[in-house]
């Protein structure tokens, strides 16, 4: 057991924290706390990437860790906070299913993801390959969060946190993607956030609410 070097232990720790935060976001009822949790997840991701970068001596991973820190810990939460303030939507998030049931479904998803990732992780040659299961689990949990939430803002946070999971998967399976791809994704996320922000205003103007069940109606008058 002593053969495991400290940096792998630390990266495992951050992987576990990432999974825990994914569950915390799934259970969180308030929008503002959800944004804070999202920022915390981004921070754990940046730490884990920086540790892998330091241990494997890959300078470009430092850049992506820095990018994660600036974009997902500072910029996106700030944008979301501003959006919440402008839309004045501090309501409690209503889920479609109650919290304990969502958690149980989440556990089933985690078991599924771990089983799915196990054969893939065998093929990878990195030391951090064991955390691939956790990355897939966080992607699926974010997906679950997008499904179970009715309002627009939590769905977008779910989308952003799914990107966190994908990023973590790339780091743990292949020590990160090429810099060009990462920059592209980062820009995409930022642009998506801005466009979705505009969408929020449009949706609210049309329906006086951000509840997405209004979008399911095709006609204006039944």
């Amino acid at each position: 057991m002593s053969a495991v070097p400290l940096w792998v232990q630390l990266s495992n720790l951050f992987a576990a924290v990432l999974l825990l935060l994914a569950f915390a976001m799934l259970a969180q009822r308030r929008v503002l706390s959800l944004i804070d949790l999202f920022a915390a997840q981004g921070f754990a991701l940046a730490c884990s990437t920086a540790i892998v970068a330091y241990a494997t001596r890959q300078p470009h991973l430092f850049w992506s860790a820095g990018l994660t820190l600036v974009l997902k810990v500072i910029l996106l939460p700030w944008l979301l906070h501003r959006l919440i303030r402008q839309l004045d939507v501090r309501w409690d998030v209503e889920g479609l299913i109650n919290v304990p049931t969502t958690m149980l479904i989440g556990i089933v998803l985690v078991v599924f993801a771990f089983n799915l990732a196990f054969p893939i992780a065998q093929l990878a040659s990195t030391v951090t390959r064991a955390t691939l299961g956790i990355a897939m689990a966080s992607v699926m949990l974010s997906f679950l969060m997008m499904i179970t939430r009715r309002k627009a803002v939590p769905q977008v946070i779910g989308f952003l946190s799914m990107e966190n999971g994908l990023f973590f998967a790339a780091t743990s399976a292949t020590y990160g993607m090429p810099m060009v791809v990462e920059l592209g994704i980062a820009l995409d996320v930022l642009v998506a956030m801005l466009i979705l922000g505009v969408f929020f205003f449009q949706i609210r103007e049309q329906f006086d609410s951000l509840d997405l069940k209004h979008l399911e109606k095709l006609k204006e008058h039944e």
Partner: protein
Amino acid sequence: MSASAFLSQLLQLAIALLLAPLLLGWVNQCRAWLQNKSAPSLLLPYRTIRKLFHKDAVVAENASPVFRITPYVVFSAMALAAAIVPSIATDLPFAHAADAIALVGLFALARVFIALAAMDLGTAFGSIGARREMFVGFLAEPALLMVLFTASLISGATLLPTIVETLAHRDIAIYPSLAFAGVAFTMVSLAENARIPVDNPATHLELTMIHEAMILEYSARHLALIEWASALKLFNYSCIGIALFLPFGIAQGSTDWTAILGAVPVLIGKLAMGGFALALIETVSAKMRLFRAPEFLGTAFLLAVLAMLVNLLLGS
């Protein structure tokens, strides 16, 4: 099985029986300090128990034998559990008779008896207390089992002494799974020992009681035994927590008496810290509504399952 092992077993049992009320007094004292009140004496639980033993017992006319034997069953279950959990030494004759799963069963036995006794007289508060107790119990038990399974997976055994020996001898490493399991165990212990987020041990309001509502009808020596048993339960849970998460300092092997005697002050130190932490948790948190308890204990279950899964996946 040597005479020395028997002696250490007896010593451990005696320490558990004697120290359990002191732990309760210490928690109460810490809580009073933290809330800026003047603290009751450390020895108050002993005085309460002595006072109750000197009184005449009153038993309702329609009480069945279940009501009479319950205090003895509950007390002996807790005393047996105190003999099984390795708190100062690991070479205990009793500890090899029952593993961690049987220990959970022993706690369940005590719970079933006390709930039956509460319903026995047919009083409204007793029935409410019994139902709530079973409600909390059925949510807490799976989480407790998962915590124990996590420790068992790491050490490869369900026997508590083996778990302690493995965990105390491993290298210093970061175990995310043990951290999750530790948090889950703390939450389960709070619920099982009727402490604040779930139940309030100091309440006088019958409608919100869980544990206290069940023992409203008991008096004198019966009540003394039940109070002593709940102090022992708190002691046992603390010792399980110490055995799983802070096993350093527990003597291994039965012949080395300096180690065994040296383990006693270490145990007292750890219990003092644990008691202070408990008082701190109780001071900073408020009692939840009863129907929030499933969420609280669901979180504990989730953390414990995550600990197990993370341990399986990462091997740490």
